[in-house]
C-alpha cells in the first residue's frame, strides 16, 4: 500500500495502518538510535519512544518533506534529548568488538565479520556529530538534502561535516590497525 494512503489512515487513528507504516521504519529508527546512544537497550527504548511520538503527531505531518526525513528527525531529536539527559559520554557497550581479541595482521585478508566489527567500533569512537552524519550518509545512505533536513543545517555544512567525520573515522581505522589494501 502506498505510504501516503497509510499516513492518511494513520491520521484517522487507524492502528493497523500505523503498524504497517512503522514496520518499515523500525529498523531505520533503531539503527539511528543505536549508533547515536551506543547502547542496544537504550536504542530499544528510544525506538519505542520515537514510534509513540510519530503516532501522536502524525496528524501534524504536512508532507513538506519526505515522510522518512520527518521520521528520522523525530528519532534524531529523541536521541539528542536522551543524550542531554545522560550528559556523560555514553560508554560503548562492547558487545560488538572485544579489543583484546583483535589481532589483525595487515598483510592478511581480514574476515568480513571482523572488518565490520572494527568499523563499527571505530564509528562508536567518533563524537556524536560525526557519528550521526556517518550513520545517516554511509550506513543509511541518505542524500545530503535529507541529512540537511534531519539535522536542520545547511547542505554545505552537511558536506563538510561528513568529510570531517570520514577523516576522523579514517584515523580511528588506522589506530585500529586497518590500512589500505585490507
Amino acid at each position: 500500500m502506498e505510504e501516503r494512503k497509510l499516513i492518511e489512515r494513520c491520521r484517522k487513528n487507524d492502528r493497523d495502518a500505523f503498524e504497517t507504516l512503522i514496520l518499515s521504519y523500525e529498523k531505520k529508527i533503531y539503527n539511528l538510535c543505536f549508533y547515536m546512544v551506543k547502547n542496544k537497550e537504550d536504542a530499544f527504548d528510544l525506538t519505542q519512544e520515537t514510534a509513540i511520538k510519530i503516532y501522536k503527531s502524525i496528524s501534524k505531518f504536512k508532507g513538506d518533506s519526505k515522510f522518512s526525513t520527518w521520521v528520522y528527525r523525530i528519532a534524531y531529536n529523541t536521541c539528542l534529548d536522551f543524550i542531554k539527559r545522560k550528559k556523560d559520554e555514553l560508554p560503548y557497550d562492547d558487545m560488538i568488538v572485544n579489543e583484546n581479541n583483535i589481532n589483525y595482521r595487515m598483510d592478511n585478508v581480514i574476515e568480513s565479520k571482523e572488518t565490520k566489527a572494527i568499523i563499527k567500533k571505530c564509528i562508536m569512537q567518533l563524537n556524536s556529530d560525526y557519528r550521526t552524519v556517518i550513520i545517516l550518509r554511509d550506513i543509511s545512505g541518505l542524500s545530503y538534502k535529507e541529512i540537511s533536513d534531519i539535522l536542520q543545517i545547511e547542505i554545505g555544512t552537511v558536506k563538510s561535516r561528513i568529510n570531517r567525520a570520514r577523516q576522523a573515522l579514517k584515523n580511528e581505522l588506522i589506530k585500529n590497525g586497518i590500512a589500505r589494501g585490507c
Partner: protein
Amino acid sequence: MGEKEYIDKMFSVDDFEKNEEEIEGGLLDNLIEEVPESLHESIMKKIDKHKNRLNFKIYGPIAAAACIIIAISFQNKVFVKSTKIESKDEAKSERKLASSGSTPEEKNTAKVYDNGMKTEDTNAKEAPSTELAKNMSNVEKSKLSGFEFNGSNEGKNPVETRGVTKSNEDKDQAEAQSLAKSNEDKSQAETRDSTKSNEDKSQAETQDIAKSNEDKSQAKTQSIAKSNDDVNQVKARSLTKSNSIAYNFEIKLSNEKNKDIIEFIEKNGEKLDENFYKLSVNNFNVLDEMLKKQGIEKITSCENIEKEVIIKINLKE
C-alpha cells in the same frame, strides 16, 4: 563487499577537507543492526496503551459524569424508599401505641383535640413532627383523634409520644392533666392553649391543626396526616390529605356582596384546595382591614400564625 570498498575509497583520499571526489552514501549498509524481535510487538503494545489512555481522556469524564448521575438518582430512590418505609414504620408504631394506650407519663401531657394533633417537645433539639394517628375503633366511637404533648416527656421517645391516640382507656389518662373528650361523652378537652369547638364541635388549636371532615369513613382512616419527603415540613405545616386542611381563619362570604374580597383572596392567595387559601401575613393584614370595613367576622381556628395564613372561605349564595 561495501565496507571494503568504503575503506579503499577512504584510504584513496589523502585529505578529505580538500577532496572533491565524492564517496557515495550507503556503502556501510552492512553495518545495519538487526532489530530485536520483540521491538515491533512492544511498540504496538505501547501504541495500544497510549490509545486507551487517549480514549480514557476523551470518554473518561463522560463516563464519570454518567456514573455520578446514576449514583445520585439511585441514592434519591433509596432515600425516598427509606423515607416511605420510615413513615410506614412510624404509622405502624403509632397504631400499636394507639391500640395499647398511652403510658402514664404521656397521660400527664396529653391534650386532646378533635381530629388533629400536635406534638411539641421543648427538651428535644429536633421538634417532633405532627402526625395524626387514630385508633380506628376509638375514632368510630369518639370521632376524636388528636393529641398534643408539651415538652414534659423527658427521656421519652418523641415518636412514641407523637403517636398516642385517643382510646377508651385515654379517658382515664386524660383526667390527669389534659382531658380527652369523646363525642360520646360530649366532653371537651382542656389544654394549655385552650381549644375551640368547630361546627362539628371539634376544633383543634395547634400550629398544625388537622381538620377532619364530616366524612366518618375518612375519620376512620388511621393515618390522615401525610408525611412529605421532608419531615420538618410536615411539622411546620402538615396539610392533611384530601379535604382535611389545617386553617387559621374561617370567613363567611357572600358571592355577590363580597366579590372584592374574594377577588383579593384569589389574586393574592394560593389556592390549596376548594375554599382553602394560603395568604402571606401582609396580604392577610390587608384582607383583615377589608373584612373589618365590611363588618365580616372571622372564625378563628388557630391564631398561631407564622409566615402564612391559611383561610377557609364559606361561600353563601
